């Protein structure tokens, strides 16, 4: 056996937790930008743009994030493009989160009542003015609770970056376990840290949902 858990191990776990937070922020930011574009494409007046973005969402929502990670990290080098674990993980999360946030936000934009569009049109606002000044401010309010809820999924999903060798919380736990052979203790600590990161966000999301009327069911596994 490789000794017992000491302060160095805990430091290492803390460092991993910081990378989990960092990767979550990358996923939220990159996925947020991608999701915003997807949401706008999904309601575009152009049929072809709508079809393409719908196809993207269907493809990504039918594929496990793990396979997307493998595809970017192991697949791209086959094509002669080498990527670092951080790039692969960040890109995969962006692609994945973009599809889900895109759908959440499309739903929010579409649930702004139709007369709002018509009223804005009646005031002779252009399509982009209608969007920015009338629809989006209302959509943001509708979208906030499910978006906050989805952040929990992002944090949990960063654990999959460990499979491409990115040292975040789950991977740092694996590394320590490889030397200490104390799986129950170490994975419980890891689980508790994830819980401490996710549970407050879950609570905020639930409070927001209660305030904004009918509770939505947030989906998600992993």
């Amino acid at each position, binding site marked *: 056996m490789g000794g017992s858990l000491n302060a160095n191990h805990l430091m290492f776990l803390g460092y991993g937790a910081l990378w989990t937070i960092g990767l979550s922020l990358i996923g939220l930011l990159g996925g947020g930008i991608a999701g915003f574009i997807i949401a706008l494409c999904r309601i575009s007046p152009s049929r072809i743009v709508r079809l393409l973005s719908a196809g993207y969402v269907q493809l990504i929502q039918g*594929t496990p994030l793990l396979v997307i990670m493998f595809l970017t990290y192991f697949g791209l080098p086959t094509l002669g493009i080498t990527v670092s674990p951080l790039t692969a993980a960040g890109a995969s999360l962006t692609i994945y989160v973009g599809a889900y946030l895109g759908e959440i936000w499309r739903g929010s934009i579409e649930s702004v009542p139709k007369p709002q569009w018509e009223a804005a049109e009646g005031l002779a606002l252009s399509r982009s003015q209608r969007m920015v000044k009338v629809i989006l401010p209302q959509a943001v309010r509708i979208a906030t609770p499910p978006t906050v809820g989805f952040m929990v999924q992002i944090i949990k999903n960063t654990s999959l970056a460990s499979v491409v060798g990115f040292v975040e919380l789950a991977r740092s736990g694996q590394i320590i376990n490889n030397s200490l052979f104390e*799986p*129950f203790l170490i*994975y419980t600590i890891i689980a508790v840290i994830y*819980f401490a990161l*996710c549970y407050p966000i879950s609570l905020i999301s639930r409070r927001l949902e209660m305030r904004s009327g009918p509770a939505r069911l947030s989906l998600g*596994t992993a």
Partner: protein
Amino acid sequence: MNINLDFATIFERWPAFLDGALLTLQLAFIATLLGTVIGVLGAIGRRSHHPIVSRICGIYVESIRNTPLLVQIFLVYFGLASLGLKFSAFAVAAAALTINVGAYTTEIIRAGFDSIPRGQIEAAEGLALSRAQIYWHVVMWPAIEKVYPSLTSQFVLLMLASSVTSQISAEELTAVANYVQSDTYRAFETYILVALVYIVLSLVMRAGFWLLGLVIFPRRRRLGTPL
């Protein structure tokens, strides 16, 4: 940059991919079945007037929903092994996926229970139905019927998430892919193919759930409500 794609080498391994896909479906099937049972029991438990029962169910749901599946799988697999309990990777994978999805189905079914109007239960009481009859006919089936779409999306997500069990070498689709790509060095082609297989599997599952919905909720078909 030199791109030459070689799908032929990958296609040659189709029997292995087929085995992996079947195992993925098996995992999804077991977890869907047991997950529904846990979900119904958990939802009844969360609404229980007994504070300890509802507390335990609440802790189960929150602890599972706020930790990653990967960590849960490691905890079960390596944790049990360190206690000297050896199970096959498949058994652990099925158990971990069931425990995971059970927490989500508990929440979904509970939301369904909560959406049954109080008046309907009072009406059933007025018709002198027993408590068990009320739970079965007036609460449970209408509740599951209401949340059936979210429930089935959750099970499709679970099937995709079962890819994570490749990390404890359960021989499902993703594990087969890892094996094939390290054997053929055609990682890109392998994972593109596997992604397509997953998309097909999720379409098959969605179609299956839709048909199942028509069979178990005939009222819905009569009313013409889209599932």
